[in-house]
Structure formats: C-alpha cells, structure tokens
C-alpha cells in the first residue's frame, strides 16, 4: 500500500505523533526546571536529578525493580519461547484450546484481577509475600507477551532449513540449537526487552504481591504522586524514559539490521 502520501496523511501522522510525544517531552523539559513549582519555569537546573539520586529510598526501590525485571524477564523469555514453539509447531495436543487461551487471556486481563488472584493464591498457599512473589507474578504475565512476539516470527519460519539439517545427519536437538534458535534469536531478544520493560513498569500487580522490604520504583513513584507532582519525580521519570528509549533504539536497530542482512542473503542465494 504505497502510492500517494497525501497531505491529509502527513497531517494525521504528525498530529498523532505530537499527541503521543508532547506530554513526555514536557515532563522531561520541566524536570530541568529550577523552580519548585512544577508548572512555572524558573530557569535551567539539574538539581532535581542530584536530589533524586541522593534519595536513598528511591535508589533502593530502583535496585529492587531492576533485579525483579532481570530475573523475571529471563525466565519469562524461556517459558514464552517454549510456549510459542508449542503454539506454532503443535497443531494438535490435548488441551490446546486451554493452552492458547491461557496465553492470550493475560494480554488483556485487567491488572487488578491478575494481581488480586495471584495474591490470594500466595496467601492460600502460605507463601510470604516479597521479592520472589513479585518475580513469579511478573513471569506469569510477561511470558505471554514473549510468546506472542516469538510466535509471529516462528510462523514465517522456513521449516525446510530444519529438514535440510536433519537430512545431513543433525539430531533434532542439535538442529534446534544450531538452526532454529539462531534464526529466531532476534525475536527472542525483542521478547526479553518487552518482558523487561513491562516488569520495570508494572505497578498494580507488584502492589498486590509485594511484602515488607520489597518496594519497586513504580510503587514508590505512585505513593509520591498521590501527594502531588514534584520536580524530583519528574527527574527520576526522565531518567527512566531516557534509559528505556536508548535501549529500545539499540535493540530495534539491531533487529532491523538483522532483517536487512537476512533479506540480502536471501537475494544472494537467489542470484
């Protein structure tokens, strides 16, 4: 679908993107505001960043959040990738309907329900809430996002490559690790990044499933936001936005480069 990019199209894209970006840009701009009043410009200053980084409680929460996200994203990526393989490669097995249902439902399930139900499970099982219950909760909902990302790559996977490897004497397990895995690796990586950021971001599920000593950054930000907007929160939010943006740009550029390389190789083979 590429014929004419009309002025109407250009305007709607520009307005749409402006709507998406203005609030974030304003937030970042005002994090450099010297004035304590969030909406009155009082000159450029980085003092709120210094204040945010000196705030021990905030830094502790950030560290908990990063650890939760690293662990849960990694495990969720393993489970999600396996689930994607099951969904794409096994068209028939007992309970497949339930299986795919359990993969798609968490994508849209309201967080209050997921959070509450998991909490009640932990209480019923007599498990103390804290760091690890947040990790389990995050694995559960982020693995489904990983599954969807990897699945979309697996659907277009050329299975003749695996067959060729096996014809040449490769064992199935070997084929998986030397052929299948490297080819779908970029989508697995993209899935990991998605799981990581979802975990970093989550407030509701973490709030339900955390216990004493396990306060994540979103929980901390949330409890402060209720008391009002402060430049310090603006600063810490801007740092988060910057980190995620840089990470994403790097990962999507590497995905894109990989895609281009693959397309070029395919062309070479045809030539």
């Amino acid at each position, binding site marked *: 679908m590429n014929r004419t990019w009309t002025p109407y199209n250009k305007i709607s894209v520009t307005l749409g993107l402006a709507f998406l970006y203005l609030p974030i840009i304003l937030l970042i701009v005002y994090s450099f505001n010297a004035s304590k009043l969030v909406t009155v410009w009082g000159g450029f200053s980085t003092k709120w960043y210094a204040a945010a980084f000196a705030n021990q409680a905030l830094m502790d929460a950030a560290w908990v959040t990063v650890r939760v996200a690293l662990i849960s994203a990694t495990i969720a990526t393993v489970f999600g990738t396996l689930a994607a393989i099951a969904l794409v490669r096994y068209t028939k097995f007992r309970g497949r309907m339930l299986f795919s249902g359990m993969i798609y439902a968490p994508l849209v399930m309201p967080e209050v329900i997921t959070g509450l139900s998991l909490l009640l499970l932990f209480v019923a099982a007599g498990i103390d809430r804290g760091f690890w219950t947040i990790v389990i909760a995050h694995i559960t909902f982020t693995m489904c996002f990983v599954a969807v990302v990897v699945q979309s790559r697996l659907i277009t996977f050329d299975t003749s490559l695996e067959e060729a490897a096996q014809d040449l004497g490769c064992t199935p397990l070997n084929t998986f690790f030397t052929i299948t895995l490297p080819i779908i690796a970029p989508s697995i990586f993209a899935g990991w990044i998605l799981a990581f950021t979802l975990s970093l971001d989550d407030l509701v599920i973490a709030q339900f499933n955390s216990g004493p000593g396990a306060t994540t950054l979103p929980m901390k930000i949330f409890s402060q*936001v209720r008391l009002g907007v402060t430049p310090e929160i603006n600063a810490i939010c801007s740092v988060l936005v910057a980190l995620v943006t840089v990470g994403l740009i790097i990962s999507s550029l590497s995905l894109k480069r990989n895609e281009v390389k693959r397309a070029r190789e395919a062309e070479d083979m045809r030539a």
Partner: protein
Amino acid sequence: MSGDAANKTNDGILRRNLIGKAAIWLPYLWLTMFFLAPFAIVFKISFSEIVVAMPPYTPTFDFGDGIAQLWQNFRKFSFENYIFLTEDSLYWKAYLSSLKIAVISTILTLLIGYPLAYGIAKSPRNIRFILLMLVVLPFWTSFLIRVYAWIGILKKEGLFNQLLLSIGAIDTPLTLLNTNFAVYIGIVYSYLPFMVLPLYAALEKQDETLLEAAEDLGCTRLKAFWTITFPLSYPGIIAGCFLVFIPAVGEFVIPYLLGGADTLMIGKLLWTEFFANRDWPVSSAVAVILLLILVLPIMYFQQSQARAQEASK
C-alpha cells in the same frame, strides 16, 4: 508455505525430544498454577466471610475435607458478598460507569488511531519503519509516567490552561483534572499504540490493485476508501478495539490519578475495598463479576487471535 507435510515431520521429530515436551509442559504447568488456579481461589474466597485476622476471611470450604464435609460446608456457602454487591447501588453503578467509560474511550481511540495507522501505512517505505517505531516507543516507556505527565498538563495552573489563557481563549482556568474528561484522555493516550498496531497490520497488507480497479471503474477516492479499504480493515479494527476495551474496563491507575471523586470505575473500587477497607471477600466478589462481564469479550478476542494466526500460516 511448505504445507502440512513439513509441519508434520517436524512435529514428529520434535515431539520425541526434550524440547518438544518442554515446550508444552513447562508453560502449561506454570500458567495453570499461577494463572488458572488463582481464579479458583478468588471464586472460593468470594463466598467466604470477612473476619479481622490474617488472612482476613474465614474459609468456606476446603478441598481436603472429603465429600461429606464438603457438602456440609457447601450448605454454609455464603452468597452474602454477592447480595451485598447487588444491594449497594454503588457497585452496579460502578460496573455500568466502567463499561461506559471504556466504550467511549475505545471509540475515541479508534477515531484518533485510524487516521494515524492509515497515514503510516501510506507513508513511503523508507520512513515507515521509523514512524511505526515512534508509535510503539511511548508504549515501552512507563505507563505510570505517561499518566503522571498529564497531571502537569491538565492541572488548574497546568500547561494547557496556561496556553488557553495566554492566547485569550478563556478568562478563568478550566477544571480538567479529576474529571471524566481527563480519564478519557488518559485511556486514549495510554492505549493508542494498542489500537494503531493491529490497524496498521490490516491496512498495510491490503492489495493496492483493488483500489486502482475501483478508480478505473469510476469510483471516487473517498468512495473507494469506504467500500474497499475500510471493510478490509475490520479484523484490525476488531483486534484494536478489544485490546483497548478489555483492559480499560478494569483500569485502575488512570481513574485513580486523573479521575475525580465522582469517577466511578470498578478497578478503583476493587483497589479501595482491598487496600483501604481490607475486605478481601467483597473485593473477590467484585473481581468475579468483573471477570464474568469480560469473559465473553476475552474469549472472542482469543478466537480472533487464533484465527489470525491460522490465516497467516
């Protein structure tokens, strides 16, 4: 694709090895344990009574008790929480108001998302990837932060009012924050990427020659859009609307931060019952009813996802 035969051989080979088995059983077990089983517990607790203890409810029945005991306890089954929910008009008003807010915001998201997705699908190939990435990027940055950013804009002394005052559009600042209007903005803003992506996917793969044929046969551009492009994008519209509507019904953060005291939403109510009133049985009952309301849309969404997956094979 190489067809079913290829899939089948792979099936056979993979199934016998470790990965084939693990692919099904590990995620299956995990999700059954931590996604499905918790719903059973929510259901169970929604029938129990509140006590001042930890956990703050009396268990109604225990699966370890044997059949006779189970039946005994079953007769003690308390529908009290549900009766309470129907008697207190606050709850059904909250359900209705959640549905209303979700429907209106879904429509608004579609109205804003469609031209955006359409514009991107029409854009030159070399910048399409960048535009798409620009739409997805905010989705990756914190949800909480994006909602929070609107507080500074919509406040009475906020940037939007300052702008309107400075251009002389208004004399006194408008009350925007803590209204339903702010909740709509918050939902549309947060969920816009969910709408744009499926729409873009549906629009991008459309066959351009259909439009050419229509124009050759004397169709105007606008008419060609409404008779060809728009109907062909239905799958995208449906997927996008569900992705916005279902989570929006149970939304908590947006009504809590942007909505007012009179913004009734069920997610907010559940949160208050749980964290402020510590009434676990009632909040479980609230969750069960919310789930019942959403079960049909969720199942429909799953079916359409599964169909889309089959189709792209």
